[in-house]
């Protein structure tokens, strides 16, 4: 990581100050600092106002609503304290959603890491068509979520889909498995699709991180069987660890919050077998108009995300990104 720009503000002031004549030296930097501060606030004002009005205020309102019994039809919400939260933890659906969300995010992230790192190691080598292979492999990640969802809805179709046709190739005569229609396979199916869609992002990040690792180590890791694992474990991984940690944190949060894929593929069903926080909150609010319950689930998911946020801040500090 380049050090040059971290303390840009500070170094900058020091340099100019040393060029000013001694008599004015005390006042000029201070004036300079004030001017910088005013200009800075002026320039970030639009962004800050936007965040305040469109993110902070709605968030506060949502948290407030979770303590009321507000529905679309009753115009005067009553304060009900923790009632919504008690209702939530006493319902089976709630625990199903928590479990699904953790399984979904956990499994997807682990496989995105493995597949992402594996692809990055492979595509880091020089070979004919390397650039083309890299571009092709990224395409699932660039594909709109809805299109990816529709495409895999077709692929999972028991009769006309490609997945069963693929299984058929291996000699299983009539594998007409309704992947998305069966509660026991639906979660696995949406997880598989999310791995397919998201791994390329991890790969891009790891490819970039591998540029800082000596080419010899990577070659050796790929070519040299037993010793290769050693190199991967002791040389390559430690080197790219900061990137790994940040990528894993980001993909965890994005997967946890990912709405499009499950909404298109299963709508959270069959039953609640693929319901995760975002799809369940959406259903509670837009389909059942239960404002209080929806915002309660929202706050619960915020609390879970807060844990990730704390780790994330720590990582950003460690990588000196915030300075």
């Amino acid at each position, binding site marked *: 990581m*380049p050090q*040059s720009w971290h303390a840009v*503000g*500070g170094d*900058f*002031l020091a340099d100019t100050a040393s060029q000013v004549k001694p008599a004015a030296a005390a006042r000029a930097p201070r004036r300079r*600092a004030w*001017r910088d*501060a005013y200009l*800075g606030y002026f320039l*970030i004002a*639009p*962004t*800050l106002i*936007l*965040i305040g009005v*469109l993110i902070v205020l*709605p*968030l506060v309102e*949502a948290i407030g*609503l979770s303590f009321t019994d507000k529905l679309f039809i009753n115009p005067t919400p009553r304060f009900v304290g923790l009632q919504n939260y008690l209702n939530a933890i006493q319902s089976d659906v709630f625990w199903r959603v928590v479990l699904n969300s953790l399984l979904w995010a956990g499994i997807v992230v682990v496989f995105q890491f493995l597949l992402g790192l*594996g692809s990055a190691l*492979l*595509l880091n080598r020089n070979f004919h068509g390397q650039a083309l292979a890299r*571009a*092709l*492999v990224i395409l699932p990640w*660039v594909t*709109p*979520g809805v*299109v990816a969802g*529709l*495409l895999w*809805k*077709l692929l999972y179709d028991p009769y*006309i889909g490609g997945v069963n046709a693929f299984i*058929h190739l291996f000699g299983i005569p009539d594998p007409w498995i309704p992947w998305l229609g069966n509660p026991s396979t639906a979660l696995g199916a949406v997880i598989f699709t999310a791995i397919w869609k998201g791994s390329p992002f991890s790969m891009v*990040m790891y490819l*970039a991180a591998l540029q800082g690792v000596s080419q010899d180590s990577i070659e050796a890791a790929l*070519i040299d069987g037993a010793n290769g694992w050693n190199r991967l474990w002791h040389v390559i991984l430690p080197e790219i660890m900061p990137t790994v940690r*940040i*990528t894993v944190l980001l993909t965890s*949060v994005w997967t*946890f*919050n990912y*709405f*499009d894929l499950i*909404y*298109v593929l299963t709508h959270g069903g069959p039953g609640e077998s693929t319901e995760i926080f975002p799809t369940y*909150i*959406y259903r509670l*609010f*837009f389909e059942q108009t239960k404002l209080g319950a929806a915002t309660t689930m929202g*706050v619960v998911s*915020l609390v879970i*995300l807060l844990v990730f946020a704390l780790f*994330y801040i720590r990582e950003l500090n460690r*990588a000196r990104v*915030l*300075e």
Partner: protein
Amino acid sequence: MSVQGSAVRAARPRASVNSLVSSLLVLLLVAFFILPFSWMVSMGFKQPDEWFVTPPRLIPQHPTLANYLGALDPAFLRYAFNSVLVSSVTTAITIICALFSAYAFSRLAFPGRRQLFTLIILTQLLPLVVLIIPIYRFFAEQGLINTYLALIVAYLTFTVPVAVWLLRGFFASIPVDLEEAAKIDGCTQMGAFLRVVLPLSAPGIAGTATYVFFSTWQELLFALSLTTSQDMRTLPVGILGYIGEHETNWGLLMAASTLICIPVFGLFLFLQRQFVAGLVAGGVKG
């Protein structure tokens, strides 16, 4: 590896065997990520009587253009128009707003800079589905459901923070000396920014703009909630309507999906380098 003998003799066949293995792995990898798309494209050229042929054929026996022609109906063109309009306007506003903020965060010292920047980064961890509830209520009260304004404003909630983050990464990679030189030549701070830093960050701005355009082009949640009339739907919401209650015209749907991907893939291949650089700069280096 069971190869015995001197290290020199052993290394060579082993290396070539391994490079064969890794070529095969690369092929498998590309196949895994790309084959599903071939199903999409192939379906777009199939007539319904070919759907149920077993084993299914990747290359249709009687390819037809009917699905593509059928997909380009007035409703689809309207969705496309809405998508292009909303995505471009959002991207333009986002970039203008984020350029100045990102510059301030990368170059100017002011109290609270670090905390405010942390706040901006953290907004990316928020679930949009929680924000949509109060935002939807607000727009509904104001009678702004089914307007471009509502969509664009809602999109800014997630585009501006990302753009500030990515652009700050790009500005940070431009040496401060260049601005210093410009200022000695009589430029103001803003003058130096506009005349020196901006032109140099053109690739970064292009990459960031592409990223923002992508994320709004494919956005589903806000578009689904804030539009209810056919006329105002964007492409992602529009094509969801093609899924029928009882039967779905998959040929038409996959043709439409292919058409939606074309501009995205085209833009991506064209700006690939900037795009990837942007992600990496934002995600890892800050």
